[in-house]
């Protein structure tokens, strides 16, 4: 079975590199057969698939984007935004990138122990690039902001009836980490915005 998979991959090598949908399908097939093409960098399947370098390169680009935007978003970037930026910075004509590729590239970064992982807040899928456990209060509050990109202290109180100290501590910590920014116009209740959720267009 393995050898027929090898033959298949060898024949379709070019399509695998150029067609992301096909690439994902082949990888699923490998998984079903219990073969992980990325199990080792010198894995024979990785070489055959020609994907070792692809994911390595992608991983470096992901790190670059995450580090470059960290001062604005506190180390949280939305999956779609990351993909958009990846496509933008990759050379024209290079292989297209799909979410599945990003997942694989991130799982390859694990040995670096840099804390890169994918986290979901409600319907928002994010890539977290700082090694810290997301405080469960943060996650709860971020879920609250998933549709509107923002929240107020009152929103938190109404949703979960937390006491003022808990709300205060949570917001303060999130501000310190740069995960949220405060909008405080004169004479109005401050609103807290999640830069990672906000895209002008």
């Amino acid at each position, binding site marked *: 079975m393995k050898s027929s998979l090898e033959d298949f991959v060898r024949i379709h090598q070019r399509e695998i590199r150029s067609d992301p949908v096909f690439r994902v399908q082949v990888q699923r097939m490998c998984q079903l057969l219990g073969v992980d093409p990325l199990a080792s960098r010198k894995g024979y399947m990785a070489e055959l698939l020609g994907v070792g370098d692809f994911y390595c390169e992608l991983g470096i680009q992901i790190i670059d984007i995450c580090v470059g935007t960290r*001062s*604005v978003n*506190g180390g949280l970037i939305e999956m779609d935004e990351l993909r958009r930026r990846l496509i933008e910075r990759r050379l024209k004509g290079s292989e297209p990138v799909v979410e599945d590729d990003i997942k694989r590239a991130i799982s390859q970064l694990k040995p670096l122990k840099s804390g890169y992982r994918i986290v979901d807040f409600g319907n928002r899928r994010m890539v977290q690039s700082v090694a810290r456990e997301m405080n469960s209060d943060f996650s709860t509050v971020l879920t609250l902001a998933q549709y509107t990109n923002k929240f107020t202290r009152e929103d938190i109180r109404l949703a979960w009836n937390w006491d003022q100290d808990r709300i205060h501590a949570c917001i303060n910590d999130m*501000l*310190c980490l*740069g995960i949220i*920014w*405060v*909008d*405080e*116009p004169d004479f109005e209740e401050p*609103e807290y*915005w999640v*830069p990672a959720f*906000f*895209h*002008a267009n």
Partner: protein
Amino acid sequence: MASTTAAAGEPFQFPEMYNFPPFFTRQPNESTWKEQRRQWCDLVLAFYRHNRLYSMSLAEAVTEPPFANRQLRRALRVDVLREVVDELVKQGNAVWAGAKGTKDICLVFWRKPEVWATMIHQWASERGLFNTVLTVFELANGDDTAGQEFHGLDAATLRRALDVLQSQGKAQLFAGASDEDLGVKLFA
């Protein structure tokens, strides 16, 4: 952001952050604020370059773009803008003008006086105008300089460029009856 002066009438492209309401509130966290201030500095220089603006009265500036966003009903506070300008001054991209010790008016150098100085000197060289007395008014507004990058330059910034040339021994300034009558002779 555009690195050269845009053609007249072309609308300024605001960065994404201009539509992010908290961008107009000074962030309490120091490292976030540093990033925010950096983005404001970039925006000021790009906006002033695009619109060929040279000086800023802070109190007036906060009522207009790029410091106010009418759609969002948000504006930067004067004291926060002052911090942004302080940073521009530190970078050499602005100087406080107005009475000594006050921080209400500034000149914004989206092009440094040294660069304007080089352009003016180059132009004089090409036109064979060395050792000729020119008025400062002519330099900025005369027909001879039409089409030059420094045409339309405001008096205060132009004066700083000429000061640079004078300190390099490439110009001599002659006081006139008024600021506009100030004369200058350029040398090779």
